């Protein structure tokens, strides 16, 4: 079933250009019907859009081109997005713009207002051959539709839709659980909870680097066919599953424990599991190597470098509002010493006291292959 995209832009050339691109690109034409609207027509009238019953909106950021009657809409795409969100809480809205026009890092003051959008997609990236953005839009439209069309809108139904293992239901309840007490939900609320909390922060589900490090192995080893075959049941396949994959932490642990001996279970998981896997497959597995010291297996992931690191070579790094139940965000000594992205303001007071000591320490990565 094709999803209906409503694309709103005040620039007729852009509307034509993307109409042609959606028609000519196989991935796009197989999955989407595109409907274009120039912004001024939207003024106070959503009737035509209502008739289309869109599955997803693409909204341009700049609306400063006058229409045929020389009227300028006088709003940005953000204002329009907020307006659309109020009218269509059940439909995903994507800010569709150019990097040169809109940079969310510079527009940090817009953080609250950007919350009307599910995603920001840059026009120049959408049709790149190696880009997964079209797949992302497909999933967004499809899974919003599933939420919209779900008959029973209860907590239990939601758990089924995300295929939560029984052990995780209590944890999920503790992570800012959306209010479904009246057996009704807005698709947007659920989508936000899943995409911006559960799937975003490591803790209940892991991306490949966190999953690998949790098990004490390298990402390459984790993503190998042999390994994925053993851990296939741990893979998250519920709503809004990212194309790069997510894995339930509880299931990774359950499967890992199933091949570990009693003695191995008494060890930290990374150590016990790598030993068990080596025994089972009769060959050693590549372990997670600490990016700072080269020690193995590393037991945490550096928030900035997104690489394994020993917890003892990290400091707490508070850059987001993740729920406390999620894995703590921590930055490696290596990032502290080398990364331009590191900002000491994000450390807690005890961490700030340690900065000068860390910067004056001998470089443990010298002579290792940690790079």
């Amino acid at each position, binding site marked *: 079933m094709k999803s209906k995209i409503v694309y709103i832009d005040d620039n007729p050339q852009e509307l034509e250009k993307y109409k042609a691109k959606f028609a000519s690109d196989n991935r796009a034409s197989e999955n989407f019907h595109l409907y274009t609207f120039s912004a001024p027509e939207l003024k106070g009238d959503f009737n035509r859009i209502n008739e289309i019953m869109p599955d997803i909106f693409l909204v341009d950021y700049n609306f400063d081109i006058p229409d045929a009657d020389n009227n300028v809409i006088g709003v940005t795409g953000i204002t329009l997005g907020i307006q659309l969100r109020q009218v269509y809480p059940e439909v995903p809205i994507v800010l569709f713009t150019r990097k040169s026009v809109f940079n969310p890092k510079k527009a940090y003051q817009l953080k609250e207002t950007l919350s009307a959008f599910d995603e920001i997609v840059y026009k120049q990236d959408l049709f790149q051959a190696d880009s997964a953005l079209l797949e992302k839009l497909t999933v967004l439209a499809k899974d919003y539709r599933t939420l919209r069309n779900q008959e029973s809108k209860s907590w239990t139904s939601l758990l089924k839709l995300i295929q939560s293992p029984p052990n995780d239901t209590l944890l999920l309840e503790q992570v800012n659980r959306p209010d479904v007490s009246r057996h009704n939900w807005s698709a947007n609320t659920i989508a936000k909870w899943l995409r911006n909390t559960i799937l975003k922060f490591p803790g209940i589900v892991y991306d490949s680097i966190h999953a690998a490090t949790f098990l004490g192995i390298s990402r390459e080893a984790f993503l190998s066919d042999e390994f994925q075959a053993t851990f296939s049941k741990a893979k998250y396949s519920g709503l809004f599953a990212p194309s790069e994959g997510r894995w339930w932490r509880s299931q990774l642990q359950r499967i890992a424990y199933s091949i570990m001996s009693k003695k191995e279970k008494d060890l*930290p998981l990374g150590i016990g599991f790598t030993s068990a896997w080596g025994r089972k497959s009769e060959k050693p597995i590549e372990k997670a190597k600490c990016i700072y010291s080269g020690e193995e297996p590393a*037991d945490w992931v550096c928030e900035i470098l997104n690489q394994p690191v*020993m*917890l*003892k*070579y*990290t*400091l*707490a790094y508070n850059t987001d509002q993740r729920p*406390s139940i999620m894995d*703590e965000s921590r930055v490696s000594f290596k990032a502290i010493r080398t990364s331009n992205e590191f900002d000491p303001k994000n450390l*807690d*007071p*005890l*961490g700030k*006291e*340690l900065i000068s000591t*860390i910067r004056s320490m001998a470089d443990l990565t010298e002579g290792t292959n940690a790079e």
Partner: protein
Amino acid sequence: MLSERYARDLTFLLDPKYLGNYFSAVSKQTLRNQIEALRDQRKKDKWHFVINKAQPLTFIENEDKLQADISCQISGTRDDTQEVRTLLRIWSSDPTLCYRTGIDATQVGNQFRQTGKRVLIRIHFEPRRPTARIPEPTHHFQIGGVPDVSEICWWPKQIDVPRLYYPPMDVILLSELVLVNLFPRRSSNLRKKPEWTALIRKSQNYFQQTFCSNYYSFFSSEQDTVLGNFLL
């Protein structure tokens, strides 16, 4: 002033990232109040930090139904510590650990059933008493002491030995001891974190430096034994 720095360090114990989730809610209130009381003394030459035995700093129960609590009387002048007295009690709510049918008196059993817990072990970390009848190491620990009735823990008053030389232990150092012994797995990540180890090292510096440097000089002394030196 050490009192101000120590108050700041103690505040981190309340943070869920450190020990906030290990303490009972009432204990967190107690600790917060006593930290405030310590802060109020920042302009005074002499300072005291007290957590009363009647309202101790209580940890949550561990998987083996063991529960630790800590009380203390710590005093200092300006940048030095003077006297550090702490008490660590390990309680249990496990009937099989607290009452042996056919061996222990029925009254002990009844009392245990009423309170639901009893003290299994109590350890004092304290300096030498000036009026001690037998020689005591300058700083030592002693098992036993004088229990309250509510502890259901009988310890003969006359048995106040042995006293084993041991460095002074403040609330932060005792908390580390509790984590290692009662929550070894749960606290393993916390104990690896540099922020936590830095906090512990600060308490080591404040409270144990003199004892440890004495220990090393006593160890290399040819005049007497380590214990002998600690008794002088």
